[in-house]
């Protein structure tokens, strides 16, 4: 019995050796075992969507131009879209209905939409990164996960000159959803697990 087992082992070893030899032959013939660098990364990739700040395309670009906005490089967006943004802002918000109206940043409709039309997100490499922090006064230094960006934007659109403390249209200046439905993590990857 023991001998038979030994013979089985020897046969198994020989078979494994044969396999190893075959593999070795394959290597010699450069038969490919895929490695990461041999994936196909060729080709041209053409732009379909883009985004800098939240809600810019959705709120300020007219329906017929939304696709065009997504394929206009940021360096060209201001010239192409500022006047459309201004028309849509003044149509949307009664707080910008009159000449000289400004928002809480002291920006009139033309200046505010000039800022928004170039849809890039500024990111500070020197400290606090937030869309807006009323306590520190930091503004547009990034966008953190917990930032209530929609309320900030509503204040700037509907709040008028004193939007932060005494908004002109208070029921339009806060959606009263102030936080995410799941807590974020303090460590990478920061976002909450999927539902």
């Amino acid at each position, binding site marked *: 019995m023991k001998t038979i087992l030994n013979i089985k082992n020897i046969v198994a070893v020989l078979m494994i050796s044969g396999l190893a030899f075959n593999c070795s032959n394959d290597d010699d013939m450069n038969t490919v075992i895929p490695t*990461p660098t041999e*994936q*196909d*990364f*060729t*080709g*041209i*990739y*053409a*732009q*379909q*969507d*883009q*985004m*800098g700040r*939240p*809600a*810019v*395309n*959705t*709120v300020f670009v007219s*329906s017929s131009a*939304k*696709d065009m*906005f*997504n394929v206009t*490089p*940021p*360096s060209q967006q201001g010239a192409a879209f500022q006047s459309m943004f201004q028309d849509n802002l003044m149509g949307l918000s009664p707080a910008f209905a009159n000449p000289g109206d400004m928002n809480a940043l002291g920006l009139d409709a033309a200046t505010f939409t000039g800022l928004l039309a170039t849809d*890039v*997100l*500024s*990111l*500070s*490499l*020197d400290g606090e*990164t937030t869309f807006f922090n009323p306590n520190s006064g930091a503004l547009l*230094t*990034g*966008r*953190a*996960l917990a930032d*209530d960006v*929609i309320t900030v934007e509503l204040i700037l659109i509907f709040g008028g000159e004193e939007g932060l403390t005494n908004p002109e249209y208070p*029921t339009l200046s*806060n*959606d*009263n*959803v102030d936080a*995410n*439905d799941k807590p*974020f993590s303090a460590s*990478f*990857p*920061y*976002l*909450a*697990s*999927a*539902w």
Partner: protein
Amino acid sequence: MKKMKVLLGIGAVAVAGFFMVAADHIDAPAVQGGTSDITDFYAFQGQDTNNVVFVANVQGLLSPSATADASFDENVLIEINIDTTGDNVEDLVIQAIPRDGKMYFFGPVSPGTAGLNSSIETSGAQSVVDITPYGSQAIVKNSNGLKIFAGPRDDPFFMDFAQFGEILAGNATGFNNPGSDTFAGSNVMSIVVEVPKSFIGGSGTVNTWVESKRKQ
């Protein structure tokens, strides 16, 4: 739980029926509901304050059951653009493209050409992470100084979008208090990359944005 899934499914369909949605979810006809539809973009200082974090989310409004079947599209390149000179033209890109269940990252690297058409910048540092399956612990990789992740996550965006739609439609004059988070319980496909600040200029302010690009 099953009832919740059904409810969420109905909610997603109702939301998709609106002509405009939220942060960038289904923002435009050519991309809405597709694998290249960007929902959100975040950029913030990391837990290690020597680093910054970029988050690019695509394919919004996924119900839990839809999330299990969702995947990144191998024909869609996600490109994080970084302008270090203040002209709103990208000087550096970080690219992410899926292959065989893994997400490949390249960069930060100077793009061969700026603008609407891109090649995958294989000259940039290559980092690879397994795409985290639905329901699994987040798979995180440290590579070339970067931390990288790709997979389904809870949509971090929050807003009473439904009520905003009612306001725009003339059916309401303001928001409710408390409001209701239209995006509660829905997921996105998320790409997260943490980068040393020294890789993208070190100090000062950069301009940044995300693009999705489809293979031609």
